Each structure stands twice: as structure tokens, then as C-alpha cells.
């Protein structure tokens, strides 16, 4: 598989899903809109308008805004990738376009590979770009509004070091998170290849019901809770994201990394990540096999 073909396959995914940008645009517009409405209401009805801003050295407000929005975007990102993996191989059978995709010289491995690459890397990057754009727009309006009201928080809002390091931190989170959740996401992909359009079973339904049944049946039948423990461990990074949003680490100006980077880098030293990666690869290989076996139903 050469690079040009692989790039064309990824571009096709972007075209199909409108560059994955539409929901982010809607979310961003809503956030900006409600942000502006909130500021206007405060300015109109509060006679003693006062904004408390964190200490600009330890907790720069702009960076906190980035982190807050990052949490929202990050959690939605995971749901979006899960939904993408759950539908991508199912949809092509539903609209019968898989006959066309199979009539071009591209292997099932390359097709599924391009979808995995899109889910794990392209969607997070697109999301990150949308997040940064939204954060900057909101920050600009916030700064403008506070200036008009006679406050000067530009230094705290726009501390460049903290904004850059926070942006890079969020990029790292957005790229690491899907890798950590790869076994679960690949399971969704497998369900997408598995569910039959003929009986119209929703792949998302199947992807959720089977683990839920496992969660219930394992303690009942085996008396163990291995699957539940594994899931709890898998969802640890979500706790990490929420913790860093509400208890941000101390920031240093300049391009030095915030402490939390190390937490994310530590994920790569966790054996769970590599075992999860292996399970994800097995599920992906099974999805390739099922796509290969897909037949047009009479």
C-alpha cells in the first residue's frame, strides 16, 4: 500500500464525515454564543461587576479556560471516535457502497487500516484544532469584555507560555486518549463489521450490550470481577482529565511542560496500554476478516 493511496483513503473518510468538523462547529458556536450572552447579562445587570481571576503566575486564567473546554471536547471526542468505529463498516453495507469500494484495487486491510488511522489520529487532530480555535475566540471576547468594563486581565488571559504549553498538553491528551481506549474502540469496529444490515441490528447496541452482559454474568457465573476491574482501570484517564481541570497543576511560564504531561507520558509505561493495543489489533484483524467475508445479500 503506497502513501498516496492510503492518503486518498483517509481523505475519503474525511469527505464522508464532512471532515468531522460539523459537530465541533456547532458546539463551538454554542459555547461562544452562551459565553457572550453570559458576559452581556453580567455587564447589564450587575452593578458591582467583579471578576475574580486566579493568580496569574500559578493559575493563568486563559490556560484554565483551555483546560475546561479541553475536558468537554476530550470527552465528546471519545464518544465521537466510538460512534465512528461503530458505524463506519456498517454504513458502507447499509448504503451498498461497499460493492463499489470492493471493486477498486484496495485490500480490506488497507481500507480498515485507513479507518483505524482516521479514528486514532485524524479525528483527535481535527478536534484539537477546533478546540484551540474555540478557546482563542472565547478568550478574545472575554478579554475584550473585561477591558470594556475597566479591568485589565490581558496578562493573565494571554500568558503565552501557559497557552502554548496547555495547548500542547491537550494535544498530547487527545492523541494518547484514543490509544489508551484502543481495545474498546476496536471492539466497536469489530461490531460494525459484524452487525448485519439485513436484520438491522444497531452495531452500537451490540457493542454495548455484550460488555454489559459480561459485566453482569461474570460475577454471577464465575464469582470474579476481572472484566469490571479491567474496565475501571481503562477509564482511569477520564478521572485524570477531570482532576486536572478542577485542580490544575502549577504552571510555569515559557515552554516548559506542565507537570501533568508526565502523567500522560506515564501511560506509555503502563503494560495495560500495550496489552490493550494487542487486543485492539486482534479485534481489528477480525474486523478485516469479516469485511473480507462480507457478501451482498440476495
Amino acid at each position, binding site marked *: 500500500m503506497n502513501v498516496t493511496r492510503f492518503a486518498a*483513503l483517509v481523505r475519503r473518510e474525511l*469527505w464522508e464525515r464532512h471532515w468531522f468538523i460539523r459537530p465541533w462547529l456547532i458546539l463551538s458556536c454554542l459555547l461562544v454564543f452562551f459565553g457572550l450572552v453570559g458576559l452581556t447579562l453580567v455587564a447589564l445587570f450587575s452593578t458591582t461587576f467583579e471578576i475574580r481571576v486566579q493568580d496569574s503566575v500559578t493559575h493563568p486564567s486563559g490556560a484554565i479556560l483551555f483546560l475546561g473546554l479541553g475536558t468537554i471536547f476530550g470527552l465528546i471526542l471519545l464518544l465521537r471516535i466510538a460512534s465512528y468505529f461503530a458505524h463506519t463498516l456498517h454504513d458502507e453495507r447499509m*448504503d451498498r457502497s461497499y*460493492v*463499489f469500494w470492493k*471493486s*477498486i484495487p484496495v485490500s480490506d486491510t488497507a481500507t480498515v487500516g485507513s479507518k483505524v488511522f482516521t479514528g486514532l489520529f485524524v479525528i483527535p487532530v481535527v478536534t484539537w484544532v477546533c478546540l484551540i480555535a474555540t478557546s482563542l475566540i472565547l478568550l478574545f471576547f472575554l478579554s475584550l469584555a473585561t477591558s470594556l468594563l475597566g479591568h485589565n486581565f490581558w496578562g493573565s488571559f494571554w500568558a503565552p507560555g501557559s497557552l502554548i504549553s496547555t495547548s500542547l498538553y491537550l494535544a498530547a491528551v487527545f492523541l494518547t486518549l484514543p490509544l489508551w481506549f484502543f481495545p474498546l474502540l476496536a471492539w466497536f469496529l469489530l461490531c460494525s463489521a459484524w452487525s448485519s444490515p439485513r436484520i438491522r441490528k444497531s452495531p452500537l447496541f451490540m457493542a454495548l450490550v455484550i460488555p454489559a452482559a459480561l459485566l453482569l454474568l461474570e460475577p454471577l457465573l464465575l464469582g470474579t470481577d476481572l472484566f469490571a476491574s479491567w474496565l475501571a482501570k481503562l477509564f482511569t484517564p477520564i478521572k485524570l482529565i477531570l482532576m486536572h481541570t478542577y485542580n490544575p497543576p502549577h504552571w510555569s511560564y515559557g515552554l516548559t511542560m506542565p507537570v501533568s504531561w508526565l502523567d500522560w507520558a506515564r501511560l506509555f509505561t503502563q503494560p495495560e496500554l500495550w496489552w490493550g493495543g494487542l487486543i485492539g489489533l486482534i479485534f481489528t484483524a477480525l474486523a478485516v476478516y469479516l469485511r473480507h467475508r462480507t*457478501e*451482498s445479500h440476495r
Partner: protein
Amino acid sequence: MPVLVETDALTKRYKNQVVLENVSIAIEEGSIVGLLGPNGAGKSTLIQCILGLLAYEGQCRTLGRDPRRSRHLLMENTTYVPDQLCLPLWLSVEQLLQFMCSIHPRFSESEARRFLNQTEIKGSSKLYKLSKGMLVQLHLALALATDSQLLILDEPTLGLDVTRRKEFWKQIINDYSDGKRTLIIATHLIQEVEHLVSHLILINHGRITLNQSMDSVLEHYQSVLAFPGRAQDLRAMNPVKEQEVFGRTVFLFEGRSPRELAQYGEIHQTHLTDIFEAATQRDPS
């Protein structure tokens, strides 16, 4: 001539239903094959087996490869237009051309644009906004713009009006058939391909009922318009088909010499539709 497609005892089952049974064919390079049969005869299934899109029992080699294992390599030299619309409707025409250009080594964007310029399809149009006929035209333009060794068309003109159909077949004859490329045309619109095909494969109930070159088919079948009062003599010679035309009887014979038949009637040009009807009425067992 080298054989491009070869099947041996190819069988396809859906659960307990046998859709193709012991199909053994060989298609030579440069031939134009008419794969004819009534609806549900197994034409599309056979094509999809040949292309590796369906699993099967028995043997099949297409362009020297096992189609089930090497579908993607096979498709480098094969173009397939299926009988049902399957183009991804969320793409625009422009995006589809760009995509094909990046993916298919034998696809010519300029050729595709040349074909599309003869239609009313605009590059900026999303596929879901095109009519069924336009989608067929687009898919055929993609097929004709791909310089493949093997072109497989499954009911290619369904959805096209008469003028477009004529234009399409003209393009196939003038632009595509160069004696080296091989065409397999599956259709039940026999009149359209009658003067085009060099080899005929008739399929009915999943079995091959006729597999011969056009020349030998025309030699093998004779159509006779009975002289007044001689219909009974001809009937005694076991015709494969008989029909009344303006008060006179026309018989179709298989494997009889024209000289023998000329004593009882006027020998006429045999039409493929008559052969088709006779072959499909025949009990496949």
C-alpha cells in the same frame, strides 16, 4: 488466445439454496462475452464469484489469480459496473474523480471528463442529487475511463433512455473494443448486445445451458418459416421452438443442416432472442 477467466465446477449456495451449480466456463482474451439469462438466473452471482466478491465452492481463476484471495490485485486490471447503484452518494463528482485518480493506476481523469462532458453531469454535484440515469452514466464513464484488461458490465444500461443506450454501445464498440480487451456483458436485454458479442453464455436456474462462440451458435441454430402445408413435416423434426407469425409458423431447430430444412421452409436469420427463449424453456436438469 490466453484464457482470462476460468471456472471449474463452480457452485454457490445461500444456506440450502443452490444459486450456481457446477459452472465451468473459459473466457478467452479479446472476446466479448454475452452472459445472458432471465432475471434471477445467477448472472450477477457468477460475476461476483469471478471477481472474488462472493465465496464459492469449486475452482475459479481470473487473470491467473485466485479471486477470493487476491481481489484487490485483480481489480488493478479489472473494471466492474454492478447491476445496482452502489456509488457512494455522499461524494461529489469532483471528489469521486480525484479519489479514482489517486487509487486506480489505470484510471484516466481526462478520459472520464471527456465522457462526462457529453452528459449533463456537473463536477460540483453531489451524487445524491443526480438522477438514477445520471448515476449510471457516471459509473459507466468511470468504467470506460479505466484502461482495464477485463471489463465486466452487469445490466449496464438499466436506467438509461434509448438515446443514451445507443450512445453507450457506440462508445463500447468504438472506444473500448480493440481486440485485446475482454468484455463480459450480463444482460437480459438481448437485442442490445446481439450484434456485439463474440461469445455467448446462457445461464438459467444457476446452470449453463449454452456456452459457444457466436459463429457456432448461429451455425447450430436455424430459423425456418414453414412453406404452406409443410408445418407438420417440420414439427416432426423436433424443433426447439415454434411460433405463429401472421398465420405462418416459424420453427427453430438445433443441430440441423440448412439444406435439410430448406425443403420444408424458408431459412431465416436466427435471432438471439429466439435461441434465448428456447434455451431458457429447456429443462435445466
